């Protein structure tokens, strides 16, 4: 019965939103208001402005790179606040769910798989500007390989590979790298986070080393996300 106000509220929201959807612009049509001059420039087939063919990478690392700085900051805030909470004194109901395993099959398979996962992650990070993927997805995969190591070999051995203090340092430095690239644009006479306008070499579109600041930022983001994921799971697994 105490849910009645919440249900009434939800019914109201549902009614308004469904009515809204019924008269919204049609789905799957080219002729919608959101397809305007803004998107046309992002989709310019000639990549001379940014030097990369992936339009999503153009937006997140160049046209709207300031949002991505904010996004990386949100990740930093969340994991920093989580770490600050998790290092607190353990309470009476504390448990440690991750202890690693002695199963030789699991250990051998993990040893075999982890290098391949890492190579794939580096590929995804470094090719974010020419193909789908990029820093956030690739960094997660790289961090994921560390999480696999953590689950198989236990938090103690994982912390010897990357201690929480070292992880925090990598996080801070890679986040600073983003700001430094941005300030580079500023010092080269253009604006904060400028790419071509500041004279970063764009290279040949479609090649690995191209896109100037886009490539540099993507690399930093990949490392940062990997360190963040590794650090977060290390803390959550109870190692501090």
């Amino acid at each position, binding site marked *: 019965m105490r849910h009645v106000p919440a249900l009434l509220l939800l019914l109201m929201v549902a009614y308004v939103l469904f009515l809204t959807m019924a008269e919204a612009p049609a789905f799957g049509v080219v002729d919608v208001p959101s397809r305007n001059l803004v998107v046309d420039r992002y989709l310019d087939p000639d990549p001379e402005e940014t030097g990369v063919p992936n339009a999503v990478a153009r937006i997140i690392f*160049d046209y709207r790179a300031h949002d991505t700085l904010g996004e990386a900051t949100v990740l930093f805030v969340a994991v920093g606040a989580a770490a600050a909470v998790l290092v607190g004194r353990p309470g009476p109901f504390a448990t440690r769910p991750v202890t690693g395993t002695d199963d030789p099959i699991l250990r051998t398979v993990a040893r075999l798989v982890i290098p391949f996962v890492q190579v794939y992650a580096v590929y995804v990070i470094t090719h974010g500007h020419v193909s789908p993927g990029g820093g956030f997805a690739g960094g997660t995969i790289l961090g994921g390989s560390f999480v696999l190591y953590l689950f198989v070999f236990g938090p103690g051995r994982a912390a010897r590979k990357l201690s929480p203090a070292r992880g925090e340092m990598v996080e801070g430095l890679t986040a600073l790298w983003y700001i430094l690239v941005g300030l580079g644009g500023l010092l080269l006479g253009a604006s904060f986070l400028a790419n071509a306008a500041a004279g970063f070499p764009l290279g040949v579109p479609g090649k690995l080393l191209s896109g100037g600041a886009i490539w540099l930022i993507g690399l930093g983001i990949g490392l940062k996300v990997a360190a963040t994921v590794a650090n977060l799971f290390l803390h959550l697994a109870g190692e501090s």
Partner: protein
Amino acid sequence: MLKHLPVLLTVMPLAGAFLVPVFGRSGRGHRMALVTVAVTLLAAVTMLGITAGGEVLRYRVGDWPPPWGIELRVDALGALLASFFALVYLAVTIFAGRDIPGELNPASVHWYWSLLLLLLAGINGVVTAHDLFNLFVFTEVFSLAACGIISIRDRLDSLEAAIKYLILSAVAAGCILLGIALVYMVTGHLNLSYLAAELPMAARLYPKNVLAMVALLTTGFALKSALFPLHVWLPDAHSSAPSPSSALLSGLVVKVGIVALIRLFTTVFTGPVIAALPVPVFMIVMAVGGIIFGALFAMTQRDLKRMLAYSTVTQVGYIYLGFGLLNETALTGALLHIINHALLKSMLFMCAGLFIHRTGKRRIADMAGLARHMPLTMSCFTIGAMAMVGIPVTNGFVSKWHLVLGTLHGGQPLLAGVILLSSLLSSIYYFPVVVAGWFGHPASPPPPGPEGPPSMVWPIVALASLCLILGVWPHLPLRLLGDVARTLLGR
């Protein structure tokens, strides 16, 4: 370098925050935070000097022109808010240097300084944003950082309050993001100026869409700024946080949501777009509810910080009242009240923090007779209480006076009555504390010794004197804010 100040206002605290976990682990974090906040304050004041004449600083991040790239704008309002916020921040950061290490687990102290700077970056990001999605991203930065400086105190009640705050913040974020999706769907723009240009057309073609969008964005930001009845998270969060965090949360963080709404309602949702939707009336009704109920709840509290937190609900109501009336005097009063309340409530929470730091007790009854041991702090608390009630020569009087005038200009004498009634209620819960503090007899006197470390006493005294100065000579901010209100209302 001057032309890059709008972006540096956000980037400098960010850089400081990223540096702290790298270099600030061994006790250097506090000094790094202080330096960063001081430099940010300098940047904000410089911009205030440039924009005070009515000039608007525009900045293209990445050199991309507006509809494609992100634009930042700093007008006189933005610069004034950024300056006062950074000033309060500096006082709180100095104060926190002695308070925080004793309150927290030593392993997480460096994160406190980092989160403090991230919160500042988030606030400045929202104040300077001129792009809807950019606004959302920095709203999330400051929301998460605000939870972070609550939950970092290793106590059950802080954790519980932070979880409640974060879950409601997530609901608010969902509302805002869905609102952004709806508005992008019908206009194709995210830049506020371009949105404003497209929106009348969109409102004709897709009226329901635009109305739902306005409702969602208003609800989201009202939830983040604790407009009654969406304030349920505030008392727990603000009273269970460490005292410097409470000062920042009550003084600054709840205001940021209001600033975002003021920006949206004066640049985007103007004229015909919201003519069909009675948002201002709705805001006034909710504001009156907040003013009355916040005061009533504050009267029943026995914990000093909880009482101050409920008083914030009332004060947020005042600001929304002035904003909802949408006339020049009332808006000037509301904007002035944002600044005044930021100074006052931070100062009061720091006083409470110093009482707790010195005596280890936090109930109102334990404040009796404390003036004998802490005369300076008690004097400052008295000034704050007087300003909260709205007694002349304090800055609280000036903003309340303008709010009352604004209600009369708007032809709503009943609302003027509400403000006066609530002043009466405030005096009922503030003055007993002051009277008992000066003339009561302490049940158990605190250990003898000085009033407190100078780095904790002087920030309080500085803010209190500023409250008096702004109460006696309010002309400078008033003239500036009067111009701002005229510009915002398009007159």
